[in-house]
Each structure stands twice: as C-alpha cells, then as structure tokens.
C-alpha cells in the first residue's frame, strides 16, 4: 500500500509540475488516496511557489561562460605548451639605461639593415609573453627617445598606454591571465612616465586638452572594466589598481593644466569624489 502511495505521490507531482494535470485531476484519479494525496501535493506546490530559486541572470550566464572558457582555454594551452615547448621567460629591465642602449642599438641596426622591417612588423601584434614582445617594447623606447618635445612624448605615451590596454584585452580573450599583469604594468608605467613628462616639461596647452584627457581616461576605464569582466577573481586586483592609476593620472594632468602642483596628489586620491571625507594624516611615528 505504502509503495503504491509513494509511486502515486511521485507520479502526480510530476504531472502537476509539467502542467499536464492539476491536483484535483490527480485526486479524482485516486479518490481512495485523497486524504493523503491532496494535502501533500498542495504543500509541494506551495513550497515550490514560495521558495524555488530564480534562474541565473542572462548577464551572469554570458560573462561566466566567457570567464570559464577562457580559463579552460588557458589551462589547455599551458598544459600543451609546457609539454611541447616550454615558454621562455624574459627578464630584462627595460628601464635600465644599459639594456635600453643595447636593445636600441640592436633594433636600429636591424631597422637599418632591412631585416628589421619585417621583424618590427611581426612584433607589432606581439603580446606579453611572446618572444617578439621585447622587440616591440624596445621599438617604443626608440620612438620615445627620438621624440624631442614633451608634447610628442605625451602623445606617444598615451599611444603606448592604449596599446598596453589592447594587449590586456587580447590576453584576457585568449585566457592568458598569467601574462595579463605585464600588460597592466606596462600601462601603469606609461601613465607614470606621462605624468613625469607633463610635470617636468613645458607642455603646450593644446596638448593637455582637458576634454581629451577625460575622454582618454573614460576609454581606459571602459576597456579595463571590460577586461575585468572576463578574468578570474585573482586577476582582478591588478585591473583595479590600473583603474586607480588611470584616475590618478587624470587628476595629475588636470592639476598641471590648471597651473597647479600635482605633488600634493597621492596615488589613489581622487578629488572628483567629494562625498568621501578626506582622511586625516596620521601623525608621523
């Protein structure tokens, strides 16, 4: 008897859930079980109607898929690349004058002797972690060295910052999260150098157009936030830092444009958020 009741409850629940029948239909079919069947089915419907979880949001479904598949792709790539060809790690400090000179010499020589043209073109799409990437960055160093005005430097540094963000975007799309940090570091480095140049040099007003700076900053934030959506949790801190850096650079350039001194702006300080009370300086120990 009990096993029949177990079966009937389960069967009727299925029919009610699919919408084929109502509780009353089931009760009519099994009138002898009405006293047990009716309250239990009604309770099941009530529990489902009040406590059943919602479906995931469409945005989550889409973004999570990108993140999951990017990580899967990265793990597949790293597994196969380790076996087939170990990735070579470049540890060159390009800020070192010695290395800059050496690389500049090599690249200039390569450019002069023709074969460098192909190399330069090939390296244009290189990403952090690629073997041609150092050539690309060295080429940028040379471009910067050959620019003789602060205005030219600033234009180039904005270009390099954009380039680093494009790299970050591509790396996140390809699931190469280990190399993402290098692109973000490069972005912050470009913004930091840009601030230094703006601070030191006599920059023409037309090159520090506030509207243009704001537009560039907004574009940077858009790209960084897009990348942030595609990367796993552990990679987001670097992006948040880059977002903060971009905001700070905008503030510095704004202060310079207004004829002020940016030295009072600490990294992360954003004067455009008045709702946050300024923290009192801690007394020096």
């Amino acid at each position, binding site marked *: 008897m009990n*096993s029949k009741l177990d079966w009937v409850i*389960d069967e009727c629940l299925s029919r009610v859930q699919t919408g084929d029948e109502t509780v009353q239909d089931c009760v009519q079919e099994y009138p002898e079980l009405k006293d047990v069947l009716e309250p*239990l089915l009604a309770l099941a419907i009530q*529990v489902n*109607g009040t406590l059943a*979880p919602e479906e995931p949001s469409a945005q989550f479904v889409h973004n999570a898929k990108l993140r999951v*598949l990017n990580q899967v792709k990265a793990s597949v790539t790293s*597994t196969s690349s380790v076996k087939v060809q170990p990735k070579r790690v470049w540890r060159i400090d390009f800020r070192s004058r010695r290395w800059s000179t050496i690389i500049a010499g090599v690249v200039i020589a390569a450019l002069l002797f023709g074969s460098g043209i192909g190399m330069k073109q090939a390296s244009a799409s290189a990403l952090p972690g690629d073997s041609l990437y150092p050539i690309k960055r060295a080429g940028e160093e040379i471009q910067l060295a050959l620019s003789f005005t602060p205005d030219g430097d600033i234009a180039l540094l904005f270009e390099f910052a954009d380039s680093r963000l494009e790299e970050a975007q591509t790396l996140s799309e390809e699931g190469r999260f280990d190399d993402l940090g290098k692109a973000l570091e490069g972005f912050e480095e470009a913004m930091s150098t840009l601030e230094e140049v703006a601070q030191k040099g006599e920059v023409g007003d037309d090159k520090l157009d506030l509207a243009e700076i704001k537009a560039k900053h907004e574009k940077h934030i858009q790209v960084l936030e897009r990348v942030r959506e595609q990367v796993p949790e552990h990679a987001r801190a670097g992006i948040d830092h880059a977002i903060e850096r971009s905001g700070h650079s905008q503030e510095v350039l704004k202060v310079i444009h207004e004829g002020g001194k940016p030295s009072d702006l600490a990294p992360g300080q954003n004067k455009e958020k008045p709702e946050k009370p300024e923290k009192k300086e801690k007394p020096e120990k």
Partner: protein
Amino acid sequence: MIEDNIHTLDDARLIERAKRGEVEAFGCLYERYLESIYRYIRTRVAEDRTAEDLTETVFLRSFESLSRYKEKGLRFSAFLYQVARNLLVDHYRQKEEELPIESAEQINVSPSRIDDLIVIQDKVDSLRVGLEALPEEYREIIRLRVLLELSTTECAQWIGRSEGAVRVLLHRAMKALKRQVVKANE
C-alpha cells in the same frame, strides 16, 4: 556548421572532446547544466553573488577533474552535482556559517495588498521553519524534486539512490514537512 553539430552531441561525446582539449565542447556542457547547478547552489546560499561565484568554480573544478570522470552510468549532471556539494562543504567550512537553505529563498509572488503580504510572509516563515527542522536527507530531496523540479530518474542519479528509494524519501520528506508546518502554525 561545426557549432551546430557539436550542440547535437550527447554528453559522452562532448566529454570525450572536452578531455581532448576542445573548449567548445566544454562550452556546450556548460550551457546544458549551468541553470540546474546554479539553482541548486542558490537553494543553499543566501546571495545571488555567492551562488554565481560557486557555480563558476563548479565548472572550473569539473574541467580540472574531467580526466578522472568515467561515465559508468553516472550522468555528467550528477558529476557536477557531486562537485557542487563538495564545494559547498568547503564553502561552509570556510565561512563557518551554514545558512539554512530555507532562509536563503525569496518570495516569488508580488502581492498587491499589504494583508496578502503578511499572510504570505507567515506561510513562507512556517515553510522555512518546517524545512529547517527536517533531517538533511529530507531537505535535499525537497530541494531536488520539489524546488528544482528534477525528475525522479535525475534525482536518483544525483543522489546515487534507486528511483524507488527516491519515491520513498519524497513521500516521507513531504509528510514530515507537513507535520512541521502544522506545528509551526499552532
């Protein structure tokens, strides 16, 4: 063309391809089971955001463990469910705050009158209290069979019991819940 073909493949074929490193095959499995895994986790945690993070982790861990997965009659959805359960255990261990599933849920109805809202809230509260008082085995079958509306066969696969055992469990769980709700309303 390839995309169309891949979407028509059964789980076993997709798993085979995913094991060979075909990301798109794993993407198909993700699309197939995301909703049920998310909704299951959502019955166990208090916030959408937590459920989203855990769901994502379930799929990543599943891919990592895919080489060890052998079908042997175990559906892939049941495999994902096992990964989700293990992950929830870790989650609660870390947080030290196992929130009863019942209090994690939201009311799905929008009453137009305040009186209706009070009545519904009372019902929801009594259901929650009733569910909290049940043994975990009963709560789990109610989550799967009643809240997620999984079929008896799927439930049996997920919890590793026979279909007959699922029916018995459901009957007992619903009877126990009814007793608890009556008690809560007294």
